[in-house]
């Protein structure tokens, strides 16, 4: 997407953005792809020209594709293949999901990447990068009427395409626990990944699961940190929380084992904390913490134009509701301790879970020493 379009040379897009003091990038997850840039406000025309030219006439050639396949392969090596636990994330979704849309890795395997043809990319681009399938958000020091007129000027000439097929966003109910052990030659410590199927982030249950995440693993005061990391010393790091997904989601828990401790003990300690949520008391301060934390991150997000644009575009594309940026906080503030217990009971069940344990497998190393 940065290798040129009808009126923009290969690499010229990011040269123009950076040379005028801006920055830019793009990202892809299972549900959507976005592209964004920040520029001084007097370069609004430049940004609209660059984005509209590539939406209208991206230059997809064999050479460009080959270069980008190499780049994505390096991205894959850097973020997956050369990292401890890099394969764990991919394997986890592969095991946990039945729905192929959510099962497969976003970056793809080396074989997937090699198999991509110019025709594949052109077809995908035509359907999914069409104006009728996109949302454009601009935040900053612009005059709305003038800005809208410019957007029309640059984008209205781009023809719509037949709407893409609705993706399958169903996931069959899981009947029993799934479990897998992976050996990882790059890892130094055993890691446990646990996941439970949960509904879309549009569901009100997602807000209660977000508060559950705060109770379990947000900050030093959290139950995982106080009990599992500090008192029992069964983990170096822990995490628990829902993954935001437009379709079927997962509530994930992760723990990394210190040297000399048992993975079974860590797994049991995690379940014990889940049970305490289901049957014990959630303190007022724990709810207050989740509410304050949601408020503070909302306020912090307001200070960044880019952050606001990214969030609104995502809400527009996922739920056709960019105004969620103004109302989501209210939903979180309404969550009660009873809601948190209800979703813990409903989703954190043995039959609904997937467990992947990653154990270090030392490679045949060259021996050190003088």
């Amino acid at each position, binding site marked *: 997407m940065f290798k040129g379009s009808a*009126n923009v040379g290969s690499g010229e897009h990011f*040269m123009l953005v950076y040379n005028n003091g801006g920055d830019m990038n793009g990202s892809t997850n299972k549900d959507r792809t976005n592209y964004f840039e920040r520029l001084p406000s007097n370069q609004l025309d430049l940004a609209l020209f660059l984005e509209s030219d590539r939406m209208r006439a991206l230059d997809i050639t064999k050479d460009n594709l080959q270069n980008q396949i190499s780049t994505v392969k390096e991205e894959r090596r850097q973020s997956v293949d050369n990292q401890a636990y890099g394969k764990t994330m991919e394997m986890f979704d592969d095991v946990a999901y039945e729905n192929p849309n959510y099962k497969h890795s976003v970056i793809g395997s080396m074989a997937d990447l090699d198999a991509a043809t110019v025709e594949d990319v052109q077809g995908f681009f035509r359907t999914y990068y069409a104006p009728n399938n996109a949302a454009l958000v601009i935040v900053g020091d612009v005059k709305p009427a003038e800005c809208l007129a410019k957007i029309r000027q640059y984008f209205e000439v781009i023809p719509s395409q037949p709407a893409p097929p609705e993706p399958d966003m169903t996931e069959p109910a899981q009947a029993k626990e799934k479990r897998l052990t992976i050996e990882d*030659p790059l890892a130094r410590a055993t890691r446990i990944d646990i996941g439970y199927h949960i509904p879309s982030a549009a569901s009100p249950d997602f807000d209660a699961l977000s508060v559950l995440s705060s109770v379990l693993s947000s900050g030093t005061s959290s139950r995982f940190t106080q009990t599992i990391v500090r008192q029992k010393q069964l983990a170096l790091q822990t995490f628990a929380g829902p993954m935001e997904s437009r379709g079927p989601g997962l509530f994930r828990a992760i723990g990394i084992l210190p040297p000399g401790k048992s993975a079974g003990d860590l797994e049991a300690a995690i379940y014990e904390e889940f049970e305490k949520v289901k049957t014990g008391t959630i303190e007022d301060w724990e709810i207050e913490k989740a509410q304050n934390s949601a408020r503070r991150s909302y306020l912090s997000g307001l200070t960044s134009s880019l952050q606001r644009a990214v969030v609104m575009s995502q809400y527009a594309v996922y739920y056709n509701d960019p105004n969620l940026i103004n109302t989501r906080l209210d939903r979180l503030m309404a969550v009660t301790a009873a809601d948190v217990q209800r979703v813990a009971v409903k989703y954190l069940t043995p039959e609904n879970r997937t467990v992947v344990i990653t154990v270090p497998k030392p490679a045949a190393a060259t021996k050190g020493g003088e």
Partner: protein
Amino acid sequence: MLKRTLTSAAFVLLALTVTTAQAPVTQGMSPTKGVVIKGKAPVSDTVLKVVLPKAQHADLANGVHLIVLEDHRVPQVSIQIQMRGAGGYYDPADMPGLASITAAMVSEGTKTRTSQQIATELDRLAANAGAGTASSSETTVLSMGAMTEHLDKVLDIATDMLLNPTFPDQELARYKTRMKGNLVQQRAQPAYLAQEAYGRVVFGTHPAGRMMTAEALDKITRDAIVNFHATRYAPDYAYIGVTGDVTLADIKKRLETKLARWTKKGLPQLSVADPDAIGPARVTLIDRPGSVQTNLIVGTQMINRTSPDYDVARLADTIIGGGPSGRLFLNLREDKGYTYGAYSRMTTLRYRGDWSASAEVRTEVTEPALTEMMKEIARMRDERIPDKEFADKKRSLVASFALSLESPGAILSDYIVSYIYKLPADYWDKYPARVMAITQDQVQAVAKKYLDASRLQIVAVGDGKKIAEGLKKFGKVETFDAEGKAIRQ
């Protein structure tokens, strides 16, 4: 937005866009590899007027200097108490890591609060407070952030951590155990192994090259921590930076109340030493069997923050490796497809810092990638930068400075830099003009002076069996395993 809310402060207008002709450049004539310029996109050459918000200065009753940058857009406040003299740089030679542990332990209990009470109260308010430092740093920073409505409560906890920590034995033991586990865990990361080796070859035994080890952790006692805190958490050379929804008068009064007991301790005059002159060019290989990429770093010592070469060096760094429009990225990624990204960076402190270029490349192209990195460094020394590229990069530096003004934290950092290095009061006002006045000859002279091939250190972390041979072309290779132990050749 920023402009509207800050009009009350005294300000200076900066002309941030520099007119450059946008004449179309013929395809294929691009001065930079990997890029084709069609020159059809509309680039504004209007002069963008941006206000540089002004920080306010004051001194607290105990002599601590206060720098405040008001920002009333949202009800939040951030405060950093910077204690010069308490950083990792001042670790006793036989106890590396002491400053760092002391900083971590101030959150672990005070005379009136347990570790858990501190954590619970801060998290309940969605606030943060804690101290930290690095082995290269002269300062320990106690930082805190909160919504304005909770400022008083959070300031109370943070100043309690500063003045009354108790360093409980049990918490210290737990901390050491966790740290040891994390030290093992870090060795799984190739980037960590690369930084560890790089610090050693570029800075030698200087604090800037030190890393925490399990053995060093064992030596650190509670008595040493208590003593370090008692003598070095002093207001003598401290300063405080504040940004957010407060006024100078209000925050000054609050800080004077909470820090009334924090009085000077008579710390001796502080001074820092430069690292020893860097040795001859060397190649250091960290063998990480199974690696599918090689982490490459090429670097050397460069300048301190007050060097007259600073602005020119910053521009040179932007040209070679500043983001995706830098030469390293365009060559190694866009042209060759060797890597996901290639960049450079420089660090400048009170003592002589460093400059380095880095990339993570697939194992098979380690040697050609390193050849290209060395070529790009040589080009900076040996070739005049083409006019258009040079004008673009200057505009890029100046205009990105304008965009950084969206973040009050970034502006405050700029003002802290000008305060601690005693730079002129109008230093940042004149920054764009200074950058625009730099010439190609100056950049080339700086590259020649500092990026001398005979002093460039190469560090490679990767699969030794596959890359050692290729590395030999760049000099004598010293090999270590992932534990940092030398491997006999």
